[in-house]
C-alpha cells in the first residue's frame, strides 16, 4: 500500500467508504426509529437489543464514531486544500451553469448536519451513556419509547430536526451517487444507482421528519 491518505484519490476513496458506511447506518437507524410509529413494543425490543448487544456497543459503535469524526474532519481538510488550489478567485464564476447547487455546497449542508449531530448527542447519546455507564441504572427494556416521545414534545427541537433532515437530504442528493463514483463505480448500472440514490436521499430524511412530527402531534 503506497500513499495511504497522502494522495487525492486515497482521500477521496476514504471519504466515500466512510460515507457508504454512514448510509448503511442511516438506513438501519431509520428502520428502527420507524418501528416506533407502528409498535411501542417492537421499538423497545429493538432499542434494547441495540443498547445492550456487546458487538453493537463495543465494536460497531466505536467504528461509527470513528466514521463520523473521520468524515467531518476529512471534509474540512479537503475544503481547505481545495481553497488553496485556487489562490486567486475568479471575478465571475458561474458554477450554476455546469453543476448542481447541492454538489457545490456539501460543506455547508455538512456543517448543518454536524450542528444537528451535536444536538442529537446531547439529546440521546449523552443521557444514554449517563444512564448506563455513569449511574449504572438497572436495565429497563421498556424505557426507550418514552424517552423518544418526550424529546419530541418541544416544538423548537422538532423544528431543528426538520431543518437538519432537509439539509441531510440535500447532502445525500449529491453524496449518494458521488460515493459510488469515488470508489470507481461508473458503468451501465450507474443511471439506475443514481435514481435509487435520489429516492434514498429524499425518502429517508423525509421519513425521519415524519417520525418526529408523528410523535410531536400524537402525544
Amino acid at each position, binding site marked *: *500500500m*503506497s*500513499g495511504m491518505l*497522502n*494522495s*487525492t*484519490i*486515497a*482521500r*477521496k*476513496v476514504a471519504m466515500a467508504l466512510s460515507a457508504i458506511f454512514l448510509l448503511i447506518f442511516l438506513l438501519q437507524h431509520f428502520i428502527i426509529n420507524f418501528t416506533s410509529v407502528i409498535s411501542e413494543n417492537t421499538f423497545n425490543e429493538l432499542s434494547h437489543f441495540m443498547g445492550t448487544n456487546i458487538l453493537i456497543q463495543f465494536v460497531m459503535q466505536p467504528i461509527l464514531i470513528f466514521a463520523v469524526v473521520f468524515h467531518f474532519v476529512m471534509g474540512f481538510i*479537503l475544503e481547505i*486544500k*481545495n481553497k*488553496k*488550489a*485556487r*489562490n*486567486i*478567485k*475568479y*471575478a*465571475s*464564476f*458561474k*458554477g450554476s*451553469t*455546469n*453543476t*448542481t447547487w447541492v*454538489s*457545490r455546497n*456539501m460543506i455547508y449542508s455538512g456543517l448543518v448536519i454536524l450542528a444537528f449531530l451535536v444536538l442529537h448527542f446531547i439529546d440521546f447519546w449523552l443521557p444514554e451513556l449517563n444512564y448506563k455507564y455513569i449511574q449504572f441504572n438497572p436495565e429497563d427494556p421498556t424505557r426507550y419509547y418514552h424517552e423518544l416521545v418526550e424529546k419530541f414534545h418541544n416544538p423548537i427541537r422538532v423544528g431543528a430536526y426538520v431543518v437538519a433532515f432537509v439539509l441531510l437530504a440535500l447532502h445525500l442528493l*449529491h453524496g449518494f*451517487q*458521488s460515493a459510488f*463514483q*469515488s*470508489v*470507481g*463505480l*461508473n*458503468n451501465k448500472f450507474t443511471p439506475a444507482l443514481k435514481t435509487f440514490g435520489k429516492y434514498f436521499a429524499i425518502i429517508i430524511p423525509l421519513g425521519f421528519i415524519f417520525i418526529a412530527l408523528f410523535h410531536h402531534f400524537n402525544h
Partner: protein
Amino acid sequence: MNLKLKIWRQKDANTKGKMVEYPIAGIEEDMSFLEMLDVLNEELISKGEEPVEFDHDCREGICGACSLQINGEPHGPDRGVTTCQLHMRMFKDGDTITIEPFRATAFPVIKDLIVDRSSFDRIQQAGGFISVNTSGNTIDANSIPVNKDDADKSFNAATCIGCGACVAACKNASAMLFTAAKVSQFALLPQGQIEATDRVLNMVKQMDEEGFGNCSNTGACEIECPKGISLENIARMNREYLSASLKK
C-alpha cells in the same frame, strides 16, 4: 454589435493584476471570440497601448492552446467548443463580457490572460507514455488485436487536448479529468499494460505535487470539456489507482 469587455490585465507573473474595462464596437456575430480580441488588440496597438496577451494556436479546436474564463465559464457559454470556436453570435449587442485567465494555483498567470499550464506536461511526463521496441523489430500496433469497445473508449480518452478547462471549471481546481483521460487512454489498451501500475501512481503523485485540488464529483469538468471527456474515466482511474496501490 457593441460590447463592454472587462479583461484581466497583469503585466507579468510577479505584478498584481486587475480587471480593466474596454468598450468595443462593430463586432460581427460571425467572428470567433479570438477574432473579436484581435480587433480589440489592433485598436489598442493603434492607440499605442499594450495589446491583451492571450494564448492561441490552431484556431480550429484541436490544439488546446486557447483558454479564457468567459463570463464565469471556461471557453464561454457554448458547449463542446474551445474559445477559438466560440462565436460572437452567442452574445447580444450591449452585453458586458468578463474575460479572465483560467484560475488555479497550479496554473500561474504569466501575463494578462496567459497561464502556465506546464504542470499538465509534467503530469504527462510522469507516466503518459508506453515503451515500444525501436530496435528495428518494431511491431505494428495493429498486429495486436484490441476489443472494439476498449479501442473506442481509449480513443475517446485520447481526444483530450490538454486545454485545462476541466481545472478552470472545477470549484476545487482539480485536474482529475485531464489525468484520468491520460491514464485511461493507455489503461484500456494491451500496449499500456506494461507500465500500468507505475503510470497511474506516478501521474497521480505528480498531479498532487502540482497543487491541484481534490475531486468532489461535481461534474463541472465533464460539462465544460470541449472534447466531451466523460467522468467514467475518473472512475476508471480511481480503480486503476486502487489496484496499483495494492500491488506496490
